[in-house]
């Protein structure tokens, strides 16, 4: 009996040992050298194996980057830091070379609709899926461009970066968002756009209806009045098809349009109470150089004769910050209106 047990253990143990030895010998003997650059590249790739690049996983992508010269930017979700690291590793970019600051994007929900009975055609009780809701009378909301609020974007997001917040509107967690664009495709109303993470003034509306029609169905929709266009000192807003568009390359985020917008459609991120800013001149430091007077597009700076100290006409000042930027003495500061 004992010999049976011992021999069984021995046989299996020895067999296992022999095969293990053969395999470990073979792994050395038949080792295939992998380009170390491929391994390093693989480490720098996100490792989510999402397939967004078109290759079967990050490993195949890494190989393609190194051996076939596929651009690193083919990966839709790689962080700009890692992209630069890979390019430096492969000698595509010299270390420390100054590059234009990369634009890091995040999803923006272009709707700020309210959630009260007066903006609803009917109560939707169907499948909680935006596409399904749109099929039924173009959705339960009076505004044809209103976010359905049923979370198709939430379901589409592979990074858990979107959730439905108050007013049935999705909230994007910009830290988690990688701008992969899945939510953009999932939204049946084309409400989501990818914009620069660092910009914080947004038009939260996607309605191209005439102003009067928009006003009937939404309290906070863009009516295309054009006040924001007039107040923008940087020429960064255009009204096109009854809807304001921000040119994010020009926008500096001064918030003049936010303060001016009669519908509160344009918002300052994280500052719901934002009422605009106003310039404030430090009278002690001002030397009366007239630069601020000349630079102001809204005639909001008193003075003009040299050596006369300047002051701001706060009614006219839109808070664009041009004067603060140009002041040689840096004596103009921008303060938030109470």
């Amino acid at each position, binding site marked *: 009996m004992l010999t049976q047990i011992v021999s069984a253990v021995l046989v299996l143990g020895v067999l296992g040992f022999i095969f293990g030895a053969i*395999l470990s010998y073979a792994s050395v003997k038949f080792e295939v050298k992998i380009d170390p650059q491929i391994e390093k590249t693989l480490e720098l790739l996100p490792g989510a194996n999402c397939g967004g690049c078109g290759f079967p996983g990050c490993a195949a992508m890494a190989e393609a980057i190194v051996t076939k010269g596929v651009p690193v930017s083919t990966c839709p979700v790689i962080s700009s830091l890692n992209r630069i690291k890979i390019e430096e590793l492969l000698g595509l970019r010299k270390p420390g070379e100054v590059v234009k600051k990369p634009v890091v994007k995040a999803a923006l929900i272009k709707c700020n609709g309210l959630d009260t009975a007066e903006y609803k055609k009917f109560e939707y009780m169907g499948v909680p899926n935006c596409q399904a809701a749109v099929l039924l009378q173009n959705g339960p909301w009076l505004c044809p461009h209103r976010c359905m609020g049923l979370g198709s974007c939430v379901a589409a997001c592979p990074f858990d970066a979107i959730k439905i917040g108050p007013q049935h509107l999705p909230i994007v967690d910009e830290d988690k968002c990688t701008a992969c664009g899945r939510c953009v495709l999932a939204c049946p109303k084309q409400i989501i756009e990818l914009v620069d993470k660092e910009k914080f003034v947004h038009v939260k509306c996607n309605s191209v209806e005439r102003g009067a029609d928009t006003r009937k169905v939404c309290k906070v929709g863009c009516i295309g009045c054009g006040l924001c266009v007039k107040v923008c000192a940087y020429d960064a807003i255009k009204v096109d098809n009854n809807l304001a568009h921000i040119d994010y390359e020009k926008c500096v985020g001064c918030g003049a349009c936010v303060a001016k917008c009669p519908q509160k459609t344009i918002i300052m991120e994280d500052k719901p109470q934002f009422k605009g800013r106003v310039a404030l001149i430090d009278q002690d430091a001002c030397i009366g150089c007239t630069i601020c007077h000349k630079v102001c597009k809204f005639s909001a700076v008193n003075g003009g004769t040299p050596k006369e100290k300047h002051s701001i006409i706060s009614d006219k000042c839109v808070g664009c910050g041009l004067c603060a930027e140009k002041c040689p003495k840096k004596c103009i500061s921008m303060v938030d209106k109470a």
Partner: protein
Amino acid sequence: MSASIISIFIVAIFIENFVLNQILGLCPFIGVSNKIDSAVGMGLAVTFVMVMAGVATWSIQAFLLVPLKLEYLQTISFILVIASLVQFVEMVIRKTAPALYQSLGVFLPLITTNCAVLGVALLNIKKNYGLVESAVNSFGGGLGFFFALIIMAGIRERLDVSEIPEAMRGAPIAFVTAGLLATAFMGFSGLV
């Protein structure tokens, strides 16, 4: 002698076809039969591993387990042999024939857990085959698997473009097809 070997070969391919008659190795049969190309790769890989495993496990059984009266360790030691063998073959192919390795891809490691391979090893012993007969039976079994896979892949490629009720698309129609195919293979039963 030679006649019986030929009959073992024919029986293994057609009458006791591993997939369609003995219902072994169904997961690659359904999983890898989408395209003929990959079906050919998988079929060849399985055939190769089956022959190697058939010979190796027969040797283990005859020279190790039977003399030591350890026949009850059959299953576990065969699994050990097959797994190591597949790993070893993978390494060798990767080194010596990278092109073949590329085309086989994930199929090689998949074979480790293919029950048809273990099945052929166990059946060789059960039927009291000798070394040559085991090898022939394994080769025939592998070829049978290869044929079944290719026939299935050919049918499924045509199924892809034909009009099928939505509920039946994909796996359901594949299972029905497999069933019909198995029924058709039953017709070979009177062959030898």
